[in-house]
C-alpha cells in the first residue's frame, strides 16, 4: 500500500430538510404529531491520504422546530419553538481492501461524535444530536457494469452501529446504483437504505428525559439523487427520499441539495 499517494479531495456544502406531521410509532403504525421540521446545513469533506485510505468528515448545523399549536376554541395552545445548534459530527476513515478491474471492496469506521444538543428546547425534545457515541463499522462492495453499452455502477454496504448510553445497537444495510448521462454531465442514482434495531438498549420513556424517538429507531428509505457536473471541479446535487417503513421516526419525504468542489 502506497500511503504517500493522494487520492483526491472533495468538499461539499449541503442542505437537508424534512417536515413531518406524522410519524411511525413503536408498532410501526402511523400517528399524527404537531408539525416538526429538521433543517440541516452541513459541510462534508473527503481527503484521500493515499490510494487506499480516505478520511471523511461531516459537520452538520441543525435547526429543529415545531409549529405553533392553535385550538379553534381559543383555548391556549402551544407557541412555536426552534432550536439551532451544532449537530453530531461524523469522522470516518475508509480503507480500500481489494481492488479489481470491475470490483472494489472497502471497509470504514465512523465515529459519531456527540457534539449536538440532545435535550434542547423547553421540554428537551428539540434534539440536534442523540447524545451518545456512535461507532459504525461498515463493509462496502462496489462494481461497474454495462447494459446496452451504457455504463452503470452498483454498490452495497452492511454496517453495524455500536451505540452507547443505553441505546440499542443497529444494523445498517444499503444498496445504490447509478449511471452518468448526457456525455457525463449528469449522474443519476437511486438508493435503498435501511436501519434495523437490535432492541437491546435500556433507554425508554422512563429514563430518556423527554427526548423524542430516543431509541429503537428503524427506517427503510428509498431515494434518488441527480448530480450535475457544472465544470470538472464544480457540481451540484439534488436528492429526494421517502420512508417506506419505520419505527419511532418521522414519516415524511426528505429533500437535499448541495454544491461540491473537487480538487
Amino acid at each position: 500500500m502506497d500511503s504517500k499517494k493522494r487520492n483526491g479531495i472533495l468538499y461539499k456544502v449541503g442542505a437537508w430538510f424534512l417536515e413531518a406531521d406524522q410519524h411511525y410509532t413503536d408498532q410501526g403504525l402511523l400517528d399524527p404529531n404537531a408539525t416538526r421540521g429538521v433543517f440541516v446545513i452541513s459541510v462534508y469533506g473527503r481527503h484521500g491520504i493515499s490510494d487506499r485510505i480516505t478520511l471523511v468528515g461531516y459537520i452538520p448545523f441543525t435547526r429543529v422546530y415545531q409549529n405553533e399549536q392553535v385550538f379553534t376554541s381559543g383555548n391556549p395552545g402551544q407557541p412555536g419553538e426552534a432550536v439551532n445548534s451544532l449537530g453530531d459530527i461524523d469522522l470516518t476513515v475508509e480503507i480500500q481492501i481489494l481492488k479489481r478491474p470491475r470490483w472494489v471492496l472497502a471497509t470504514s469506521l465512523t465515529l459519531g461524535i456527540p457534539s449536538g444538543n440532545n435535550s434542547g428546547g423547553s421540554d428537551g425534545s428539540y434534539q440536534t444530536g442523540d447524545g451518545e457515541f456512535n461507532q459504525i463499522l461498515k463493509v462496502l462492495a462496489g462494481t461497474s457494469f454495462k447494459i446496452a453499452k451504457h455504463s452503470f455502477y452498483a454498490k452495497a454496504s452492511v454496517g453495524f452501529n455500536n451505540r452507547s448510553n443505553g441505546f440499542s445497537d443497529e444494523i445498517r444495510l444499503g444498496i445504490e446504483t447509478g449511471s452518468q448521462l448526457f456525455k457525463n454531465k449528469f449522474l443519476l442514482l437511486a438508493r435503498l437504505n435501511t436501519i434495523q434495531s437490535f432492541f437491546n438498549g435500556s433507554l425508554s420513556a422512563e429514563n430518556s428525559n423527554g427526548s423524542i424517538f430516543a431509541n429503537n429507531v428503524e427506517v427503510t428509505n428509498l431515494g434518488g439523487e441527480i448530480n450535475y457536473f457544472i465544470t470538472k471541479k464544480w457540481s451540484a446535487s439534488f436528492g429526494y427520499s421517502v420512508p417506506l417503513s419505520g419505527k419511532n421516526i418521522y414519516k415524511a419525504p426528505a429533500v437535499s441539495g448541495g454544491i461540491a468542489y473537487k480538487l
Partner: protein
Amino acid sequence: MYKKILLFIRFLLYLSCIGTDVTDDYVEPTLRITSPQIISIKVGQKFQFTAKYFDTSGTQIDNPNLIWTVSPPDALTIDDNGFATATKDGLATIQVSVVTALGTTISAETSFPVREVVVITETATMTTDTATTTSTTSGTASNTTDSNTSTSTTGSGTATTTPNTATSTTNTSTTIGDDDVVVTAPQSYQGTIQTTSSYVLTGSYEYGLNDAGQLVLDIAADYLASKALPGLYVYLTNNPNSPSGGYKIGEVTVFSGAHSYILPSSIDVNDYKYILYWCKPFSVKVGDSTIF
C-alpha cells in the same frame, strides 16, 4: 453562480420557518348538576343543588344565569340559587337550564323520590349502566332506593344523554336511621382508559374519595402504557380534545401496574368529565376515558 447558491439557501431557509397547526377542539356546551345524586329525600327537608356550565371549549363559565325548575311543581320548592325544600311525597324532577353564547338553551335534570318516611336497614347498591340508572337493595325491604332515580342532560329541549359503555358507576350507601332524611349516593366512578392512538395505553381505574376523604385516581394493576413515547402527561379535563382548561395531574412516570394520583382538595369529583393522556412534545392526544 454564487447568487444562485444564495437564492437556493434562502429558499431552503424559508422552508424551515415556524408555521401554525390548527386543531379543532370544539365540544358541545354542557350543563352538569354537580351536587351529589339524591337517592331519597324526606318531606320537609332542604337540599342545595349545584350545577356547572361549560362552554364549547370545555371551560367552566363563572356565575352563569341558571334557571331552576321542578316537576311536578308541588313536589319541592326551589329558589334561583338551587336551594330546594321537599314538600310532597312522590317522584320529583329538578331541571336546570342555561342559555349558551350561541343562543341555544341546554339543560340538565335529576329525578328522585320524595318520601314521608325514609328508612334503610341494609346496604344499598346502585349501578349505572349506559344511560339508565337502576338500584337494588338487599335484606329488609325499604322504599329508599328507586329505579326512577336518574340524572340526565338535555340540549335544546331534546334528551341527549349519551350511553357510555366504557364507564360504570357503583355507589354504596351506608345504613342510616330514620333521622337521616336526605340520602345521597357516595360518588365514585370506575372506568377504563383506552388508547386513541397507535400506542399501547390501557387500564381500568376508580375515581373518587378514599377513606381519608381525599380525591384519588386509582389506576389498577392491568394498566399498561407504551414506553416509546416520552413527554406523556395525564390530565383531568372537560374537553377530550385538549388539555387546555384542564387540570394537569402530572407527567406519566409509571408505565405498567397499579398506581395512584392523589388530587388536591380544591377539585370536586364532578368537576371534570374526562381523563386525558396527552403527548406534550407532539401536542396530540394519546388516550382518554369518560369518567361519567
